[in-house]
């Protein structure tokens, strides 16, 4: 069985968010880059867990990005996976990235494609569905549990106020979220091994984006908190009722 895990690079969760060039470009100077947490903790670690149970599985990682994304790919390889593929392009939108991932998937003939539920910078939740549609295969989103056997995947998915369990034949694309696996940190052996694992660079597919981000904006700062004395908590209830008109 062959698994493809889609990896994206995102700014660290504590990174300062600022924009430049007329608010059209994210300020990346001084930003610590990490593997998108949903891709890492849930998609990648679940694939590694499955390979630990069945060492005959092949786990490949794919990312779409310029050469400066390679340190993050090596970090992912330090957690596990047999090899990585980097599509050498800086995608303009999720559609462009998905087309390139789908092309890698077609070439590799994977049974299972895993993504995080979204990236923490673009928050698009788009790649899993787009890749599935481009490959014309099934897709289950927001998975919290996954088992594969005999050419089928048993997937538990979040629904509003509960969970649903599905069975779907492979190949399938699954977007993963919290609950899927326990977060891990790479060990020294993994870090050493990652240095020599194959990292293949492939040329981008000729495809244009369908959307473009015109500009960014930061939310307006709060005018300041209205503090209520701790010995008068009833005043807070009055303010929420009469001033904010919210309860």
């Amino acid at each position, binding site marked *: 069985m062959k698994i493809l895990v889609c990896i994206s690079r995102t700014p660290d*969760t504590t990174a300062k968010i600022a*924009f430049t060039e007329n608010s059209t470009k994210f300020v990346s100077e001084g930003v610590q880059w990490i593997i998108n*947490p949903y891709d890492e*903790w849930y998609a990648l670690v679940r694939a590694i867990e499955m390979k630990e149970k069945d060492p005959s599985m092949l786990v490949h990682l794919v990312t779409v990005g310029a050469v400066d994304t390679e340190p993050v790919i090596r970090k992912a390889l330090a957690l596990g996976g047999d090899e990585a593929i980097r599509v050498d392009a800086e995608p303009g*939108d*999720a*559609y462009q990235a*998905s087309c390139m991932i789908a092309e890698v998937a077609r070439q590799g003939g994977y049974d299972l494609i895993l993504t995080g539920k979204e990236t*923490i910078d*673009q*928050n*698009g*939740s*788009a790649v899993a*569905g*787009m890749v*599935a*549609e481009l490959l014309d*295969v*099934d*897709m289950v*989103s*927001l998975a919290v549990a996954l088992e594969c056997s005999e050419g089928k995947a048993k997937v538990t998915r*979040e*629904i*509003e*106020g*509960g*969970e*649903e*369990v*599905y*069975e*779907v*034949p492979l190949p399938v694309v699954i977007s993963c979220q*919290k609950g899927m696996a326990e977060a891990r940190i790479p060990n020294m052996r993994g870090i050493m091994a990652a240095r020599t694992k194959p990292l293949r660079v492939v040329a981008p597919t000729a495809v244009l*984006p*369908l*959307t*473009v*981000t*015109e500009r*960014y*904006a930061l*939310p307006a700062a*709060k005018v300041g*908190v*209205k*503090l*209520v*004395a*701790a010995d008068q*908590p*009833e005043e*807070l209830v009055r*303010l*929420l009722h009469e001033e*904010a008109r*919210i*309860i």
Partner: protein
Amino acid sequence: MRKRELSDKSPDNFLTNSIAMAVLTYVDLNEGLVRKSSLEALCYGSQLAERFGCPSEAIVLGSVSIDLAELGAYGVTRVHHVADGGLDVFDTRRHASIVAAMARAIGATTVVLSHSLNGRALGPRLSVRLQAGYVSGVTSLPEETEQFIIKRNVFSGKAQAEVSILSPVRVLTLQPNAFGIRRGAGQAEVITGTTPEDSGRVHHLETRKVTGSIPLGEAELVISGGRGLKGPEHWGLVEDLAGLIGAATACSRAVADAHWRPHHEHVGQTGLAIAPNLYFAIGISGAIQHLAGVNRSKVIVVINKDPEAPFFKAADYGIVGDAFEVMPRIIAAVRRLKAV
């Protein structure tokens, strides 16, 4: 009522009257009822249609327990309903192919979905199928009709982006709680369609529901607890207040990781991002990752005994005090207010 044969195998059969423009809104159901987030999407779709001077139509897949003609109250003129073919099982591939076929059939130039758990799974598939630019988690209507530019939240709520769609057809998912519901008096024409019996490959095995709880993503009021509450045995303070005002309950990551509360209650950068009208945080310091998930809330209230807690900088109202002393008095005051 008119009948229309819908085949999800040959969507191109519906490329008939595609010159006409329309907005098509996908209506996401919850046990036969229309979700609140879908009512918001319908209103958004109808206002968009009004702006473009074209009809607002809707599509509903699966069994319903309401009169779909009443969706006319949200500005739609026609509701296309396909109930058969095992469509109660959510199958992204089948659902997307039927919605795409309908979009082509009515010449829809914009397809609107809610950014609900189902909507965000269908949107990307639809966009590929229709060769349509996709923008998810939209928070605004386009300001002009010549260039289609809309706003969405990025960087987990720490920033906003203005995105323009370059393709002639567009697929949008609307951020829940970002767009008000307006109810009018209209009645919609309901057109029922059929589709071949279950040809999907996704088999539904089981549903586990947490009964009685308000879905966090759609909740207007949210009461949330953090490590400051010291243990799951003190969650009565959160639940009592939530019960009194009809709020959903949430928690910080530390609380979910400690298994004091279920993971689906975790809000923040790596949990759920929410934007309720009220976010009431008890014993949460407000780490940057937590703020990223809640800072789009309209009113933020913070109860924390540490005056240096970063959350106060993002709050509208706050009390620097011990939750175990303050909360019982707040709950009593709300109870008196609700008793009037």
